[in-house]
């Protein structure tokens, strides 16, 4: 799980630890490899974006590449578009997750089955659901055919553009489909067994339904909801496959723009692609750090209930 709760951590038996040396031995291979690959990858990318490419004979550092992208209207358009898509997906997914959580709290039926259905989207690769999105939402897709059969539209061209469209609806729908279960699961982790009872307690204390929702439910789930939403924002911000497949050719999202530059015939575009990638990484890292802070807050709330 991406988050731990305090109870689980408390279980970490504080047996007199094996000593610093053994601990280092156990942790180093994994942490070391991760640092080398991930940290190294970012660092090396950073160097290249600063113009350091000894193999191509470039040894001087320059901020030219960063300057180039920050002044490139294509970059700014892509940045704005990516923010828009991530923000919309996060907001819609977050709202739906709250409804889903309310649904699950009061659900009395076959819990395992519902949990299973909820977890399915988590396992499906983005590419597959993007493919299905095309089949469903394209002008010649299933929804269009159903509307045609129902007599509501007259031909594929009358169907509103949902794929490769300026509002990126297909992309947002795909992200929402994938991310709602994730956010819901993280919210439910806090509500778990006592969510229902906490609301019942509030109701007997004179809170009507609306007050319960606003003054009890939302504050309780806020940290874990926030943490999950930030993760979703971060992930969608850096995603490639879905916007590549479902997005317009122009403007494109930032990751697509970065890759386009990187794989451009013009080798000079490469460092600019890398620089863009670093900007993306920067935004995401900021979001994740914020998310972790919220998670820490969530842990305290999840445990005491």
């Amino acid at each position, binding site marked *: 799980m991406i988050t731990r709760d305090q109870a689980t951590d408390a279980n970490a038996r504080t047996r007199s630890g094996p000593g610093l040396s053994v601990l280092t031995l156990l942790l180093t291979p994994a942490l070391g490899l991760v640092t080398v690959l991930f940290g190294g990858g970012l660092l090396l990318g950073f160097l290249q974006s600063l113009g350091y490419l000894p193999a191509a004979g470039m040894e001087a550092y320059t901020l030219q590449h960063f300057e180039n992208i920050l002044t490139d209207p294509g970059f700014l358009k892509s940045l704005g578009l990516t923010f828009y898509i991530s923000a919309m997906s996060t907001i819609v997914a977050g709202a739906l997750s709250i409804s889903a959580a309310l649904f699950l709290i009061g659900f*009395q039926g076959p819990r395992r089955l519902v949990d299973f259905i909820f977890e399915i989207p988590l396992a499906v690769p983005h590419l597959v659901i993007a493919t299905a999105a095309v089949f469903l939402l394209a002008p010649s897709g299933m929804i269009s055919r159903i509307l045609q059969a129902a007599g509501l539209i007259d031909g594929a061209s009358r169907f509103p553009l949902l794929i490769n469209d300026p509002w990126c609806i297909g992309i947002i729908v795909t992200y929402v489909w994938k991310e709602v279960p994730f956010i819901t699961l993280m919210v439910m982790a806090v509500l778990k067994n*006592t969510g229902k*009872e*906490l609301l*019942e*307690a*509030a*109701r*007997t*204390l*004179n*809170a*009507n339904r609306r*007050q319960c929702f606003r*003054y*009890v439910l939302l*504050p*309780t789930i*806020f940290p874990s909801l926030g943490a999950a939403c930030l993760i979703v924002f971060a992930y969608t911000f850096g995603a490639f496959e879905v916007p590549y497949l479902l997005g317009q050719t122009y403007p494109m999202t930032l990751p697509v723009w970065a890759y386009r530059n990187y794989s451009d015939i013009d080798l000079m575009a490469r460092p600019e692609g890398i620089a863009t990638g670093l900007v993306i990484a920067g935004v995401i890292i900021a979001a994740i750090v914020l998310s972790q802070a919220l998670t820490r807050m969530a842990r*305290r*709330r999840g*445990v*005491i*209930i």
Partner: protein
Amino acid sequence: MGDLVLEKLSIRYGRRPVIAEFSLRVADGEMVSILGPSGAGKTTILKAVAGLIEPVSGDIRLDGKSLAGVPPDKRNTIMVFQKPLLFPFMNVEQNIAFGLRMKGMAQRQVRRAVEDILALTQLAGLDKRKVHELSGGQQQRVSLARALVLKPAVLLLDEPLSNLDANLRQQMRELIQEIQQKTRVTTLFVTHDQSEALIMSHRVTLLLDGRLRQVGRPQDLYHHPVDPDVARFFGGTNFFEGRFKDGFLHTGFGVFELPAVNGNGLPLTATIRPEDILISVTSDFELEGQVERAHFEGMATRLWVKCPGGHLVVLAGRGEFFPGQTVRLRLPAERIRVFPPGAVEPV
């Protein structure tokens, strides 16, 4: 102010019928317990009164007015759950003030009410503490305070002492009793602990298998159970058969003069509590027996005695007993309880 009537309540939990035709009257200011084994559905009765569950049939009336269809936040009944369920994002004072704020009370009045209740529940000085900094007992008291500050017509307590350890349990029990006596709030509480029910209640309601078995003062249930199940619930053993003939009860342990119970000559079930049987080594009691087992329990010694008419469990206050010893027993007639026919036969 807090006169509660439950009339023929039937409650279902999901698909399962849990409570059937439960009726009870709780007078204003009374503390009544609903006693029964865990999982018997007692909590659902409280939830029905609180408005969190809809009963399938029956009525609930507070001060003569039916509560049917009234949402939980509009009834003047407040439920305190088994777990403290304090709002984790608020401190003690905010938790207690929650209900008052929901009603829209002015800040100064809220402050005063909270202070009063903090004193009453022995929580003075803790008002700014965060919830996770409190001990289990303190959390329970905050939960109680949160309900009491609203001056409810009916207070519903769901197993208030179950989550506490033995020491805390006694303190909390005394606190609840003290508060109830001071505030005279009508209280309905649920427990599976029979000693708790006997100690705390004005009246006890015994619920077994979803049915109301007996209602009455603690003494009544203890000494005058209406059927063997009730007797057994309070630790009664010593069930034996007897037949009434010519005004006397004929049993395997002797003949006793008792007011007759009409059994049409059929064998009836009788019982006597272990502590009511007189036992001695020296006295000239009628019944002779041999001690099979003796367990020293502190306040008394529990003896299994084999008599000509069967086995009896005796609770002896004084004296030392050991297996194999010959003893003499007397069963005082006024302590024998005979159940009318139709009461369930003991296994």
